[in-house]
């Protein structure tokens, strides 16, 4: 290690601030995911609809989201929208960008989930007198979400990891906060090692709770 000396105390003292950053990371990941799910469902329905307009919008959204880097999306939201007089805070810029990408990927996931549900499930619910909305609410969506549960978990993890790009627009999530803290002391290595461990722990915890949740939520097999 040459003559490098690790100084952990300073990181220890900054731990509350880092944990706060971790909280912001989860915060932006959760919200971008919830919004992404909402848009994703709508876009998936749009992509499957027989009308032209929803189809074109959904296809364009999906392809742009999937074929450009997340960093580009964040820069677009943070710098690019300025050209239209829209100035977003770093948090909002990252939230918008992650939501955009999440909905793009989830659209395709959901579409696959919808298509895996036999048409007879729709017919059975209609024949009981359910309205279209009720049929989606009680029969189709619960089954669709169950089928895409694992891809959805992966998308959530992706959101957590990609929110680290907040560092580039000065956002106060885990990476950005770590960057700010290390710049005060120049203990770059120590700070980022701890940040890496935090990301690892957060991700493992999310995977673990997703597993527990799936066992509680999904009892019958489909």
């Amino acid at each position, binding site marked *: 290690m040459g003559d490098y000396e690790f100084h952990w105390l300073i990181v220890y003292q900054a731990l509350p601030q880092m944990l706060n950053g971790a909280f912001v990371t989860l915060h932006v990941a959760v919200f971008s995911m919830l919004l992404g799910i909402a848009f994703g469902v709508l876009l998936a329905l749009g992509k499957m609809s027989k009308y032209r307009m929803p189809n074109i919008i959904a296809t364009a959204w999906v392809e742009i989201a999937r074929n450009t880097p997340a960093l580009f999306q964040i820069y677009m939201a943070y710098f690019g929208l300025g050209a239209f007089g829209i100035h977003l805070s770093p948090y909002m810029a990252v939230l918008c960008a992650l939501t955009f990408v999440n909905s793009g990927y989830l659209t395709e996931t959901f579409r696959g989930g919808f298509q895996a549900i*036999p048409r*007879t*499930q729709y*017919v*059975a*619910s*209609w*024949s*009981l*007198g*359910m*309205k279209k909305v*009720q049929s989606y609410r*009680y*029969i189709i969506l*619960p*089954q669709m979400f*169950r089928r895409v549960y694992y891809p959805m978990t992966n998308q959530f993890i992706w959101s957590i990891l990609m929110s680290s790009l907040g560092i580039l627009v000065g956002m106060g999530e885990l990476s950005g906060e770590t960057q700010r803290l290390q710049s005060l002391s120049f203990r770059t290595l120590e700070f980022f090692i701890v940040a890496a461990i935090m990301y690892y722990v957060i991700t493992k915890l999310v995977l673990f709770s997703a597993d527990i949740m799936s066992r509680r939520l*999904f*009892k*019958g*097999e*489909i």
Partner: protein
Amino acid sequence: MIQIQGVHKSFGDLEVLKGVDLEVDKGEVVSIIGGSGSGKSTLLYCINGIENIQKGKIVVDGVDVHDKATDLNKLRQKIGMVFQQWNSFPHLTVLENVALAPRVVLGKGKKEANELAKHHLRHVGLDDKFDVYPTQMSGGQQQRLAIARTMAMNPTYMLLDEITSALDPELVGEVLDTLRLLRDEGMSMICVTHEMAFAKEVSDKVAFVEEGIIEEIGEAVQVIENPVNEKTKRFLSKVL
């Protein structure tokens, strides 16, 4: 009363119903027999408006099914349907399968809906399966669940679409027993079926359909034992 008048139905260029007339009174059981692809099942799907029609009219208790102004959801509440592949809802327990529609469609409270569901499940002999998931049950049990699910909506008519043809032979009996029960309670039913003996036993009328047309209709025993129409004779000689 269900009145079917001159109904034509096509899928693209393929015409599957070519002018069907049929009347089913309240309390009556009508079986529809015929080869596969003859349009029997399609007719059922037209009666509750799952499929649209190109020509003719279907009227249920004075309501024109395919009129744009008709509230189909309302109409379907009194026309129950049971399917070949039973179509139970795999993400819900047996009890929830039956209680769901009374709760969300009829607006019953959770407790009342559950009691209702239990009543109908006991009726079809699934007393001990309330909290089981459908996929853990046999086909015959799932089919009885489907019947209970339909009955819980207290329908006036039942449409049964080949409900025994996807079942293992040893499970057919339990489902037919359930149907006998319904018949004895005076339920009006239209059954598309391959079970000739059963059709003869439970039906008031039997209709033979070939290539989208009702070739012969009459008393159950007469049609199956002494068919008049040459096509009916040919069909029955093949299946009996």
